[in-house]
């Protein structure tokens, strides 16, 4: 895309000189992939003589004898060739990885010289996403861009991601950026996240994108960068530019194949000295075997008892089964695989280019019986006919997720059982009926009986699930069809004036099936639902632009308008108590009910932008956008978002020392903002269900109190930055400081349930983000062997400045874990997502214990214990190239953040955590009683488990430092030399070993990955029995012909 545009640009301004000299001709190709390079500048050094290569990379130039030819092309190292007396000179250009990505895509798809921008943008090439892959493209951003904080969820490979740019800006609303594909906003809806009561991560919008279709991703971080997107840009913008066809002879074909294995990354380190039991003894009856099963490692020491009853009523040797083939993680989870194949063809002639791609991804999750399949089809074409330009694109995807694993609370969550089985349990016992995983199998108790009654082989209490039953009998599957399309037409009145219209649509339907199967212990007669969701977002846009230069002055301006409409509709059928056993169909339910949801939102916008430049070193840009929202009342629904930015390229103004190549200073100020979701301004009433025995039932529609006076929220943003290049561009530093304040945030503030409502929709609060971002790039070695290193680093300091003026709301509760001993809140003076909770009481620094039983006394009030969002994020990327070999690895880190581990709370209460080895025969307690009097006592052996049970309520013991350093990505590849492939159909062959999430180099949390958040909602910093993170490794093959 960039090459093509540059080509056009250069064609327009180039002057062909015709002197009667010796003619030299040749082809310029790229060393990267062997492709020909159109638009390469070829000049005779020291003269005005020059040309550029045509669409096939071929040039012809008259050259005086003894001349030196200079080949230059943006993004490549300049090549000088002594022409000698040759008449054919073919040149291979090597990419210059240290050079500034000069041309970048900015708001509304406008391409600008990076140095003209008064704000920071980061661009990543498509290759970053296609070698070592993530199923969800957003996860692949982790550690790559300063100031972009990506959270991997503990929900398995088809789960969603959480991307936050320059800190959380909304106290409770959406904090994720706007995704724009080729200029058209893309829907990034969540289809459901696990909460306190469990559930499955139903995925999000970014999962549909095929990485092989991506040419580049541009991150617009600050307000000024995204100001032209107005209300939608308050959290930053991620622009995805897809690959386009190139002008060439014939068609180009590219085939990419990627195959990786996936395994869970087990961080557990349990005590393996004591097995299942209570008060130091093993279950002595089948009933105790069942009641105590799985969740209680308070039995006697291994070796002291030979047999114990287990959950199925049988007796088993009482010993450490982790010694037989590994722990239950190893036994339960499988080796997953992801196989992705993409075939793309492209081509084009003088007027038109096209590209078509087809891709299929097949993922088998480490979670048994779960996986994800994605089919992508991409078609696009662009053309220029005289004064007209047009383009059209269709991206189609079909996704099928099989059994998204349930996480958090126990029902249907297989991980709970795996996490909480003591060493005296072997998960294989839970397989039950070999013909129906997890079901009762009479063979166990009545040998010779082929199978049981088909119901769950349950344990402990009914709300805990047999992990095989959860994996194989539950259904949480969905399929999504999605079409992202756009069409544009542009008319160039003159070289300076143009008009463009564009329409784009993101349309998707999703069908879900969720089944709690017949025979499940807590729901014996089954329940299920079928849900269909339809979402359509349409954008209509027009723009008129003018650009011109007068002497040293230049102007680049445009005005435009946009009309956005979004519709959401859901239809749901629920059924429970199946009439015919084991037949899961909504038509079979004795109880059937339905649900229906609909909402519609619209935004009308007008916008304008003007850039004035002087002398090629000073650029001043001002923009304005006015949005009108459907979701607010007419008195308050309009807001103007202005921005102004300045770029001063002092290296173009002054002559700098020769070792100093480039220098730019930039400063920007902007206001962006946002509105709210539909139907929050007026109190309305609805009818409940189908009534009751013929009596109609009425209810208030809203669970949060509506507010007619809502106005748009505002984020005011300031940034300042420097971009410096030294030593022939071998050393670069890009540094930015920003400060952003969000005011009048719109949110459902949590209020007392006794008001009748869980929340009230209000404009409140003020929150500030301040931070520094730095990108340091270097090329310590350049030559045949090249070593490039880049370090990106960001520090974000977030603070809640103020909540409401009336003082009715002192804290905003945004999340609660299943233990209910801790909360996630926004508190004045604290950073977003504070972890708070009840703690072990202290008097004058002495721990307080209950004299009646020695138990820790837990406070009745809550304290701030940590923060769920990391302040420091970054990554170090190393890349080595030698001949055809390349080796790259990315180490990323997040520091200064915390996590409340509900898993460790349960592991402690249930005696699996190593810390519970202490005092198994009696705990020595020394502290004070509630009156402050010294207390020393020994808690007897039979009360030790309840002592730890009480201890686990003290949340201060379970908030961990969630800092980590991870080896996130490794790519080791080899590109076959050109001479090997010459004569074969191939023009380029590259084979790489790739790996993702290979090694947690540093962490500080017991038993879990520091990235164990089970949901991508705002309440960050909560762990509770999520799916363990996976590591992947395999191969990537890329072939062009």
């Amino acid at each position, binding site marked *: 895309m960039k090459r093509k545009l540059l080509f056009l640009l250069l064609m327009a301004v180039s002057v062909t000189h015709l002197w009667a000299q010796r003619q030299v001709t040749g082809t310029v190709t790229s060393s990267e992939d062997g492709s020909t390079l159109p638009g390469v500048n070829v000049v005779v050094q020291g003269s005005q003589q020059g040309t550029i290569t045509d669409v096939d990379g071929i040039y012809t130039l008259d050259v005086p004898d003894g001349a030196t030819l200079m080949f230059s092309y943006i993004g490549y190292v300049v090549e000088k060739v002594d022409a000698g007396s040759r008449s054919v000179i073919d040149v291979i250009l090597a990419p210059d990885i240290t050079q500034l990505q000069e041309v970048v895509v900015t708001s509304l798809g406008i391409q600008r010289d990076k140095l003209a921008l008064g704000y920071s943008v980061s661009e990543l090439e498509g290759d970053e996403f296609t070698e070592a892959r993530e199923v969800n493209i957003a996860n692949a951003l982790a550690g790559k861009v300063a100031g972009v904080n990506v959270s991997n969820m503990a929900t398995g490979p088809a789960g969603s991601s959480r991307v936050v740019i320059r800190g959380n800006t909304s106290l409770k609303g959406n904090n994720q950026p706007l995704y724009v594909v080729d200029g058209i906003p893309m829907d990034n809806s969540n289809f459901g996240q696990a909460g306190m009561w469990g559930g499955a991560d139903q995925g999000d919008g970014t999962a549909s994108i095929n990485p092989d279709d991506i040419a580049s991703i541009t991150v617009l971080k600050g307000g000024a960068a995204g100001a032209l997107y107005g209300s939608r840009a308050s959290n930053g913008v991620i622009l995805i530019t897809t690959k386009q066809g190139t002008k060439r002879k014939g068609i180009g074909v590219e085939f990419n194949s990627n195959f990786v294995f996936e395994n869970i990354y087990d961080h557990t380190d349990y005590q393996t000295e004591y097995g299942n039991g209570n008060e130091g003894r093993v279950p002595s009856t089948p009933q105790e075997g069942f009641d105590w099963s799985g969740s209680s490692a308070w039995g006697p020491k291994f070796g002291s008892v030979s047999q114990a009853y287990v959950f199925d009523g049988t007796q088993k040797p009482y010993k450490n089964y982790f010694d037989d083939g590994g722990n239950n993680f190893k036994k339960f989870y499988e080796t997953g695989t992801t196989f992705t194949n993409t075939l793309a063809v492209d081509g084009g002639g003088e007027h038109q280019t096209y590209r078509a791609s087809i891709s299929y991804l097949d993922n088998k999750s480490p979670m048994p019986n779960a996986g994800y399949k994605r089919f992508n089809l991409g078609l696009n074409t662009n053309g220029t006919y005289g004064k007209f330009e047009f383009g059209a694109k269709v991206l189609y995807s079909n996704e099928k997720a099989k059994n998204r694993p349930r996480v958090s609370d126990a029902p249907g969550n297989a991980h709970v059982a795996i996490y909480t089985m003591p060493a005296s349990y072997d998960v294989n016992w839970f397989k039950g009926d070999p013909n129906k995983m997890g079901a009762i199998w009479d063979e166990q108790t009545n040998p010779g009986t082929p199978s049981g009654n088909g119901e769950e082989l349950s344990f402990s209490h009914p709300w805990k699930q047999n992990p095989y039953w959860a994996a194989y009998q539950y259904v949480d599957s969905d399929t999504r069809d999605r079409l992202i399309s756009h069409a544009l037409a542009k008319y160039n009145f003159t070289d300076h004036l143009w008009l463009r219209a564009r329409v784009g649509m993101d349309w998707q339907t999703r069908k879900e099936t969720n089944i709690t199967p017949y025979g499940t212990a807590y729901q014996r007669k089954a329940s299920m639902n079928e849900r269909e969701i339809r979402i359509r977002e349409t954008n209509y846009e027009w723009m008129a632009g003018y650009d011109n230069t007068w002497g040293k002055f230049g102007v680049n301006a445009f005005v435009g308008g946009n*009309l956005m409409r979004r519709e959401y509709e859901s239809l749901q059928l629920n059924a429970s108590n199946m009439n015919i056993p084991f037949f899961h169909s909504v038509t079979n339910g004795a109880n059937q009910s339905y649900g229906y949801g609909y909402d519609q939102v619209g935004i009308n916008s007008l916008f304008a932008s003007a850039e004035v430049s002087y002398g090629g070193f000073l650029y001043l840009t001002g923009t304005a956008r006015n949005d009108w929202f459907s979701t607010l009342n007419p008195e308050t629904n309009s807001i103007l978002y202005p921005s102004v930015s300045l770029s001063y390229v002092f290296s173009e103004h002054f002559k700098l020392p020769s070792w100093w190549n480039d220098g730019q200073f930039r400063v920007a100020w902007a206001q962006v903002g946002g509105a709210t979701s539909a139907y929050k301004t007026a109190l309305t009433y609805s009818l409940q269900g189908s009534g009751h025995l013929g009596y109609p039932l009425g209810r208030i529609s809203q669970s949060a109190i509506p507010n007619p006076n809502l106005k748009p929220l505002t984020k005011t943003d300031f940034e300042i930055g420097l971009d410096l290049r030294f030593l022939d561009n071998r050393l670069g530093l890009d540094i930015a400081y920003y400060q952003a304040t969000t005011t009048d945030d719109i949110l459902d503030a949590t209020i*007392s349930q006794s008001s009748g409502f869980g929340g009230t929709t209000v404009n409140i609060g003020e929150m500030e983000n301040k931070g520094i971002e730095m990108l340091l790039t270097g090329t310590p070695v350049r030559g045949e062997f090249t070593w490039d290193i880049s370090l990106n680093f960001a520090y974000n300091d977030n603070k809640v400045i103020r909540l409401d003026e009336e003082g009715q709301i002192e804290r905003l509760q945004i999340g609660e874990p299943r233990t209910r001993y801790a909360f996630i809140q926004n508190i004045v003076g604290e950073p977003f997502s504070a972890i708070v909770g009840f703690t072990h009481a202290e008097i004058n620094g002495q721990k307080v214990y209950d004299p009646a039983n020695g138990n820790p006394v837990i406070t009745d009030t809550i304290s701030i214990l940590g923060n769920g969002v990391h302040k420091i994020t970054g990554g170090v990327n190393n890349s080595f190239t030698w001949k055809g070999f390349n080796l790259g690895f990315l180490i990323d880190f997040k520091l200064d953040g915390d996590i409340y581990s509900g898993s460790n709370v349960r592991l402690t209460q249930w005696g699996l955590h190593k810390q519970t080895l202490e005092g198994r025969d009696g705990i020595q307690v020394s502290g004070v009683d509630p009156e402050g009097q010294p207390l020393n006592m020994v808690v007897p052996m039979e009360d030790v488990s309840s002592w730890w049970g009480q201890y686990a309520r003290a949340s201060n013991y379970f908030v961990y430092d969630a800092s980590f350093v991870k080896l996130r990505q490794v790519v080791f590849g080899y590109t076959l030399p050109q001479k090997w492939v010459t004569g074969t159909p191939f023009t380029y062959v590259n084979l790489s070993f790739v790996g993702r999430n290979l090694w947690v180099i540093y962490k500080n949390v017991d038993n879990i990955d520091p990235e164990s958040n089970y949901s991508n909602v705002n309440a960050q910093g909560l762990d509770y029995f999520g799916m363990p993170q996976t590591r992947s490794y395999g191969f990537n093959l890329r072939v062009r012909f």
Partner: protein
Amino acid sequence: MKIYNKIILALILGFIPFSACDTDELTDMNVNPNASSEIDWRFNMALAQLESCENRYVNWRANIIYSANLIQHLGGTGYSAGYTQTDFPSHSAAYFDTYYERSLKEAGEVLRNTGPDGVNPEMTNTYNVTRIVYIIAIHRMVDLYGNVPYFEASRGIEGIFNPHYDDVQAIYTQEGIDDGGVRGGMLWELNQAATALATPGTDDLSTNDMIYNGDLTKWRKVAYSLMLRLAMRIQEVDKATSDKYIGIAVGSGLLIDNADDNAWCPMATGPDVWLNQNGYSRAMQPSDGGHNNVLGKPLVDFLKGVDPADAADDDPRLLMISGGIGTWEEMEAETSDLDPLNQEGIPNGLDQERLNDYLGLPPDTPTDYMTIFSKTNPKLLDWDEPYVIMTAGEVELLLAECALRGIAGVTDAQTHFENGVREDIRRYELHDAGWVVDGATIDAYIATLGAVDVEKVGDQYYIATFMNHYEAWANWRRTGYPTIVDKQDPPLPSSLTNGEIFRRLKYPTSEPAVNPNYAEGAMAPNDFMNRLWWDVGN
């Protein structure tokens, strides 16, 4: 090409009008097609009625796991052994978590709109019936937790986001101002509503009131009967107010006939399990996750009469409350042991070892309490079993206590007592048509009870409030009856209260985290043994 150019240019220009700032079209977009700005308040009253009798979540946690196990109507080993060892925040918070945002929310909205300052003040029947429904839902809340938001509760729409906590005393006894502006205490509210209903309004409730189909006379009886229940609760701590309201109640007409008067909410088999089915039944169904339906020893001992070895003196309710002994995976009693002499309830405070000890078996004998003791009769647990709010039997027993203690001029304790027992036995006809007990059998049983005294009244009240475990627990805290309902002795090691029966439940942990008024007005300490204002009986 020229013409072509013009056509394309015209198409491009055609887009421009699209983004004109037509805010009318935008505003119309924000009207929810599935909701209305107006509603018939009687529809919300109906939902408030239904939700005051729901649902599985709250019945399982507050009514069964806590109230029923504490009062030993039900029991088990370990998990539910008198339930004094478990402090699950979700369980003790369930009533608070559920009622304010459901029944009380809708009732509050009806009161706001049909009260004197509302948009439909002419809907006096709807207003006054809903006041009574509000008290039905909130009095259990007060009795479970103690101080709770009351006067400012359910007023989020008016801008009261974090209501103050009110003292139990004020919630019971405070007088209100009769302009509907300020809500009075529960007793005052009931009196106002019942008095107002004596003059019927124009709004017909016959197709909206699922409990009495708009029969206001019966609503007045419910109001006075609840008044009697609540006034009796404070007899020991504020005799003057108690006597005053008992006097009003006794003189104004009470629920005295099951078949005609009972305050029972009708339930249905569907379509929605969460909305239409009886939540208590659902919570007890093994197929729906419930498993604690084993009867407690105090209850079964009462039902077996003076001589446990003689079936002749048994309470006729024995095999209506008990469905027998056996496995009943799907709650079908066909395999159960229905011999009255074999019926047995589980004692309080057993774990597996103590159970074997109790049964005289070696400690490691495989025993399952679920198959050893009597269980709740599945005939009481149909999906569409009516949900019991209050019965005539309870009213008569309260009157008997009044007569015995000389309150409000009530006399003839023996008759009231016998009527109470008789009415409660007869109420089972309404649960199952096969349970018609002939008068002679009832009289024979009553004869075994002998002369009435306060303790016998308390014991019968305990039986009569089976399934309304909330009320049984509250009455036990006031009176100390039945005395055989007592602490675990010896306590289980894991008991949080050394085996003592809880005096209240703990608030949701979210309240101290969210409501700034919590610290000032809530019960402190927030533990299970802190007594309510009226809890002075034992």
